[in-house]
């Protein structure tokens, strides 16, 4: 049909376009499917990917599955149910929240992690800016100290801080943890933000300074808004690090009502004659959720932050 249609200027142009596209297609052949060794390698590569995916994620399926089992199903064991969950129930979750009051440690963890993140951001933003931009002496020493502080053995801090908190009467309270967790968060946040500020063109704030703004005003109105992505990255990493602590919390907190979530979880298993993995795993699933969401939504930032913090 189209071959017999009268040739108009428009259709001729279209035909020429088609011909050009066709010849380009001929010149750049479609990627050929791999054959022989290349094919074997390709298959092996994707198999390896599947193995990595399986090893990374299957354990999460396993704890989710276990957390949805009843006490009797867990007691019967995996030989009775196979890798499926068997009869699904949320009894373990309601037990955690209603009998074990898991909401309290969860709230404690959230308060400490968020407060520590806030302090980290304020302190590290100020210091990062000064270390990147202002003419202070001993920059190298301060940066090296921040780096070394990041390596400081947590266990070595516990004894003296225990004595100090005992003397101050704040042992078994969550507030000191906000300060203590800074040893996890400040080194990486400071380095990250210092590198971030160093990359922002100086012209921006110099323009503001010429316009009569003071340094602090320029910092607040011009530099900080540009630095928001860096600050956000630092905040995500700080939150993850503070949320994840176990060693300090297990050393200083003594009353179940004051526990953070990780300490509470470890104690779930200890008071019982039989270990009910469904109850423990239900709590484990719950504290993993905020972290999993952060990773899914901020994957790029986390990777960028980790590598910036580590490679410079």
């Amino acid at each position, binding site marked *: 049909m189209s071959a017999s249609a009268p040739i108009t200027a428009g259709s001729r142009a279209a035909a020429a376009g088609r011909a050009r596209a066709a010849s380009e297609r001929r010149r750049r052949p479609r990627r050929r499917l791999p054959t022989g060794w290349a094919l074997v390698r390709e298959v092996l*590569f994707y198999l390896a*990917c599947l193995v*990595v*995916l399986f*090893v*990374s994620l299957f*354990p*999460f399926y396993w704890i989710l599955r*276990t957390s949805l089992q009843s006490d009797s199903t867990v007691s019967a*064991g*995996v030989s009775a149910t196979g*890798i499926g969950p068997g009869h699904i129930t949320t009894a373990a979750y309601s037990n955690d929240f209603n009998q074990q009051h898991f909401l309290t440690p969860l709230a404690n963890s959230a308060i400490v992690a968020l407060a520590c993140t806030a302090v980290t951001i*304020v*302190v590290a933003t*100020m*210091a990062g800016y*000064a*270390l990147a931009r*202002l003419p*202070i002496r001993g920059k190298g020493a301060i*940066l*090296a100290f*921040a780096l*070394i502080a990041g*390596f400081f*053995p*947590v*266990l*070595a*801090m*516990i*004894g*003296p*801080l*225990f004595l*100090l908190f005992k003397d101050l009467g704040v042992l078994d309270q969550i507030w000191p943890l906000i300060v203590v967790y*800074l040893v996890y968060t400040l080194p990486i946040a400071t380095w990250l933000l210092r590198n971030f500020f160093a990359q922002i063109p100086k012209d921006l704030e110099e323009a503001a300074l010429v316009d009569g703004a003071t*340094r602090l005003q320029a910092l607040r109105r011009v530099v900080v808004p540009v630095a928001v992505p860096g600050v956000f990255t630092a905040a995500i990493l700080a939150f993850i690090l503070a*949320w*994840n602590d*176990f*060693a300090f919390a297990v*050393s200083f907190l003594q009353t179940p009502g004051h526990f953070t*979530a990780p300490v509470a979880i*470890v104690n779930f298993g200890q008071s019982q004659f039989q270990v009910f993995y469904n109850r*423990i*795993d239900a709590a*484990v699933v719950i*504290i993993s959720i905020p*972290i*999993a969401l952060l*990773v899914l939504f901020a*994957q790029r930032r*986390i*990777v960028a932050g*980790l*590598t910036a913090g*580590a*490679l*410079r």
Partner: protein
Amino acid sequence: MAATDRRLGYALVGPLVVLLLAVTAYPLIYNLWNSFHHVNLSIVGPRTFAGVSNYSKMFGSSDWVSALERTAAFTAISVFLETLFALGLALMLHRRFRGRGILRAAILIPWAVPTVVSATLWKTMFDPRSGFVDYLLGKAGLPGAHTTWLAGTWTSWTAIFVADAWKNVPFIAIILLAGLQVIPGEVYEAARVDGANAWQSFRRMTLPLLRPALAVALIFRTLQAFLVFDVIYIMTGGGPGVSTETLSFLNWQEFLVNTDFGYGGAQAVILVVIALLIAGVYVRVLRPATT
């Protein structure tokens, strides 16, 4: 202007320096003082001078020495194996392929979750009744299907290693991947033109150029592994017996169980010394750019 800028600069770094000193230097000095005194909360009375007795007690203690050996062995083996796995993973992620983003997110989650999650999760997985490992071994007809993993020394260490590697291999892989990504493509092009095969270009090109990233990852992990505590506390509590007690775990017990802050202080000081030695290597290998 310069003078006010400088004053502002000190005001802005001030809080960082004060807070970091408070959480690192203060405990270190306190530990140092305690380590030369008898400071035990279960003994009533003043803190008396102890000379170096806490240190000589430590170096003469078979508990401490065997914990040191265990810790060193765990560090060497786990860092070596984890780095090998991570290198493979980084090379995989360096390739452009469909689903790379998914794979990267999938490995980041184990890194990002708390150690209490990785440790309890693998405790569940290794449980003879509720776990997947024995079940899988049984179904596959492999030996060890009825292993009570946390009841034996070597099986406990295996479980600890798996939990530790599962959480930390992704971290090393991400660092190594960043190292791979800064190697310019021309390097590989040149190697190919010169007729190098994949292994040769990896040995001669990739590996040397990856050295800085490898050094960072290695030293980070060496230190973390040497100070391992959380996963031990949660999975085995140092048991069976004392067979999985590491230096950090022993130190924690001295502080929190025996409340001996003099002897614990001596252990902590040595822990800091070793950590600073390892960190010193790190700073030396990668001098921070200060300008």
